[in-house]
């Protein structure tokens, strides 16, 4: 076909413009000329004028004045003009433009044109920008073409029908018979269109889907023909016969086999055949394999086939082509919940992908790796994850750090390992961790009493190396302040002994205080730590006194306030100083988002003020500690239980503290073990609400090594007793008691009968359901008659 000279001349002129301004000038001139030409009568050059306008439009310039010209050209008897007219319509008109309605008639006429290439233009345009109205109007015509025309037209009509059905759902019913019969065509273009149409009809209407399920055997036959046929020059792509059609059919099979055993069964063999016979050396073969895998995993396939599919994904992970590795990861991510064990088999390869060059692959590998961490592989996985963290791209660090923390919390094999891991993360990526990390780590440290010496030494060393990571510095300061005596003692079994003098420790804290890298919060930590050391050292208390008094005139208001209060502690309240700066009690974790850690920093600060608003959360939320308190005699402030508080109680100035403690009466009675089997324990505690009312709290815990899901409790009581079960806190019980499930049951026993309760426990462990019943005859702390 000879090129359009006028068009190409214009293009050349535009391209030779040296500046944007010059280009605009050329375009303006050309558009003016085009406009003039449009106004003239038919001069034989109309199509190249419109083509010029379309080019200008593609450069981003307005071209709406060409819309009517498109309408005129489409109505022209000349094929060349129709061709450009329809192209213009597809580029400039959409259903929102009024002018688009004007072409409906032309399309209608052209659909029945004697020349198939004219028909083709109309079909293409209708499928591209047909409005709902046009679709309704022309649907019967399309249906006619679907049944009685040549393959060239049928395949286009099929896709037109797809567009119509997407625009006007109700018209789907119209095309069902034609779609069904098109499946017996031999022409691949028509077959492909038919499959797409059927997919669309099934996705829109579940009833239609049911009807089309009968076509599964036909589809299986067609696929078999494609997979087993010899070389077909017409459709071959790198040894695969018509991969596009294969992928589409696999897609339809997926839709038909989903949630249906029968259909899934009948396609099992075929899928296995495709999975094993398809050549995977080229991308196109892998495209078919990929679609096969997606289908297998989505229908009700037998387990052998599923394993085959996951293994294909595993092979993909080793492929040189990073596209293939990437899609393998995304697919594995989707099934890591349902086919966990199968995916675990490929853990090694997945972890290797953490070192992949491609950022997208790395990201996927990180997510998958985190999903695959379990109690049995935590040590090796954490090594890899920490290695990854030290070299990972900055945009992934926050995600990696939080993932590591979660994994460490769930599966830490020992406290020391947990602390080491958290420290490692802080050293490597301290700037990217979330705010709660600092209090969480502090809480963890206080809980590991045997490791205080080890921890403070390790943190001190880290502090000497680098004071830029705020979260690390904050934890280090807190520990030095709290366990400074252990640091100075020097002998620690777990690390090499190092001599730390009082001056060394104070130097470290002062460096943090004075450094421009330290945030205000960090300096607060450092000042408080310095103050705490005043009761843990012997020789340099004067140095501390002077530091504190200097900061009494600090510009930062927060620091100034602290310094002033600590000054007061040195002067007026010196007799209280030892008690106030005593060792902290163990911080209990009450809920995930719990900010107790932050208030521990405040608690020491608050005590010396006259109002004594002390760390209320610390005391009130720990009734258990109240109980323990009376058992522990006041002793040296090394024990991390509440013995420190008992010293307060003895002191006169702690009067208000005592009141606070005295006023607190535990309303609950201690829990009783009601059930213990297979690692699952159920404890029961009661609270009397009234003469006849009672609230029972059931707490379930799982000390076994496997996670439990769908955990539910059901309860039954004697006839006259009213029972109301409140919603449980959750339904999953992770292994090793890392989280509990609680559920409250409200009972009312108006007739005061002998209270008994039968509780049924059900859960799923590794895919198998389990049920058991236990009878509770006595309720703790109550008489047998309420």
């Amino acid at each position, binding site marked *: *076909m*000879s090129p*359009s000279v006028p*068009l190409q001349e214009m*293009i050349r002129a535009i*391209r030779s413009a040296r500046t944007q301004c010059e280009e605009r000038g050329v375009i303006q001139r050309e558009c003016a000329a085009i406009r003039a030409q449009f106004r003239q009568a038919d001069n034989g050059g109309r*199509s*190249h004028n419109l*083509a010029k306008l379309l*080019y200008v439009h*593609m*450069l*981003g310039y307005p071209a709406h004045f060409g819309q009517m010209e498109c309408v005129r050209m489409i109505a022209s008897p000349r*094929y*060349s003009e129709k*061709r*450009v007219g329809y*192209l213009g319509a597809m580029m400039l008109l959409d*259903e*929102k433009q009024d002018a688009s309605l004007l072409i409906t008639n032309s399309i209608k006429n052209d659909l029945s044109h004697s020349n198939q*290439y004219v028909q*083709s233009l109309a079909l*293409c345009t209708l*499928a*591209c920008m047909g409005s709902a109205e046009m679709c309704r109007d022309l649907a019967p015509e399309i249906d006619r073409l679907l049944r009685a025309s040549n393959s060239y037209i049928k*395949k*286009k009509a099929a*896709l*037109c029908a*797809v567009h119509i059905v*997407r625009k006007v759902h109700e018209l789907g019913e119209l095309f069902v018979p034609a779609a069904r019969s098109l499946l017996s065509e031999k022409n*691949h*273009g028509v077959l*492909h*269109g038919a499959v797409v149409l059927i997919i669309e009809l099934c996705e829109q209407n579940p009833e239609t889907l049911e009807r089309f399920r009968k076509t599964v055997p036909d589809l299986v036959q067609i696929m078999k023909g494609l997979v087993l046929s010899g070389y077909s*020059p*017409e*459709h071959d792509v790198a040894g695969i016969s*018509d*991969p*596009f*059609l294969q992928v589409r059919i696999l*897609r339809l099979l997926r839709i038909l086999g989903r949630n249906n055993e029968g259909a899934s069964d009948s396609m099992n063999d075929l899928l296995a055949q495709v999975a094993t016979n398809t050549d995977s050396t080229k*991308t*196109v073969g892998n*495209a078919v394999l*990929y*679609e096969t895998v*997606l289908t297998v995993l989505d229908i009700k396939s037998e387990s052998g086939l599923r394993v085959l599919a996951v293994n294909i994904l595993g092979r993909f992970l080793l492929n040189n082509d*990073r*596209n*293939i*590795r*990437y*899609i393998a990861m995304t697919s594995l991510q989707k099934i890591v919940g349902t086919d966990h064990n199968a995916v675990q088999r490929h853990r090694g390869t997945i972890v290797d992908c953490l070192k992949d*060059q*491609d*950022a*997208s*692959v790395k990201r996927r590998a990180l997510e998958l790796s985190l999903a695959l961490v379990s109690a049995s592989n935590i040590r090796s996985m954490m090594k890899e994850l920490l290695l990854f963290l030290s070299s990972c791209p900055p945009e992934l660090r926050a995600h990696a750090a939080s993932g590591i923390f979660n994994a460490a919390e769930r599966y830490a094999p020992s406290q020391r390992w947990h602390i080491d891991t958290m420290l490692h993360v802080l050293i490597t990526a301290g700037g990217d961790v979330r705010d709660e990390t600092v209090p969480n780590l502090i809480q963890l440290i206080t809980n590991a009493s045997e490791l205080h010496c080890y921890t403070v030494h390790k943190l001190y060393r880290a502090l000497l190396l680098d004071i830029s990571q705020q979260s690390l510095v904050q934890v280090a300061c807190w520990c030095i302040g709290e366990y400074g005596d252990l640091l100075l003692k020097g002998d620690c079994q777990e690390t090499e002994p190092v001599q730390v003098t009082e001056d060394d420790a104070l130097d470290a804290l002062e460096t943090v205080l004075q450094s421009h890298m330290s945030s205000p919060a960090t300096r607060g930590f450092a000042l408080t730590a310095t103050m705490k050391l005043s009761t843990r050292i012997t020789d340099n208390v004067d140095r501390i006194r002077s530091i504190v008094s200097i900061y009494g005139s600090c510009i930062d208001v927060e620091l100034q306030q602290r310094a002033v209060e600590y000054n007061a502690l040195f002067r007026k309240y010196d007799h209280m100083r030892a008690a106030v700066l005593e060792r902290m009690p163990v911080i209990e974790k009450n809920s995930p988002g719990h900010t107790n850690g932050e208030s521990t920093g405040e608690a020491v600060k608050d005590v010396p003020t006259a109002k004594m608003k002390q760390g209320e959360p610390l005391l009130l939320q720990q009734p258990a500690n109240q109980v323990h308190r009376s058992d522990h005699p006041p002793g040296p402030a090394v024990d991390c239980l509440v013995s420190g508080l008992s010293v307060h109680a003895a002191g006169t100035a702690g009067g208000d503290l005592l009141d606070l403690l005295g006023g607190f009466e535990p309303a609950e009675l201690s829990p009783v073990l009601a059930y213990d089997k297979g690692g699952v324990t159920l404890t029961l505690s009661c609270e009397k609400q009234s003469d006849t009312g009672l609230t029972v709290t059931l707490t379930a815990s799982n000390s076994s090594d496997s996670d439990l899901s769908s955990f539910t409790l059901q309860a039954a009581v004697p006839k006259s007793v009213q029972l109301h079960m409140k919603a449980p806190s959750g339904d999953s019980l992770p292994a090793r008691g890392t989280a509990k499930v609680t559920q409250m049951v409200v009972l009312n026993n108006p007739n005061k009968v002998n209270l008994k309760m039968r509780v049924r426990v059900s859960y799923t462990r590794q895919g198998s359901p389990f049920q058991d019943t236990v009878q509770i005859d006595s309720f703790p702390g109550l008489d047998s008659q309420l």
Partner: protein
Amino acid sequence: MTHSMRFLLLFSRQGKLRLQKWFTPMSEREKKKIIRDMTTMVLARQPRSCNFLHWKDLKVIYKRYASLYFCLAIENQENELIALEVIHRYVELLDKYFGNVCELDIIFNFEKAYFILDEFLIGGEIQETSKQMVNRSIEASDMLQETMEEYMSKPAF
């Protein structure tokens, strides 16, 4: 309303648009924004990255052929690998038609690039899976145009 493919864009390494095919209705403003976003995202990609991107709720498959980027947006549940084959098939069709196709061919004969595309894809779906069939259709249409020109003895273009 979902189509397998949402749009196809061809642009140069300087971000100049050479072809745009939209498979769902969109306002001019939306189109311009998408073109800006796509060119920025794709041109920023490192040389040896994978050919898949995520953009809003779509997957964007892109591949560079000489000085042209082919950028195809597909629905989230579509098969990325076969989308790469679709792009490749279109390039092969252009190559057969123009003979060693290069960017200049597509610039100076953009309307033919569209005609070829319209014989390969319709409404965001593949209409013909055989290369030869598509080539034959294009040749026949061109022939029709020329014979009509001769018949009317006027240059149509």
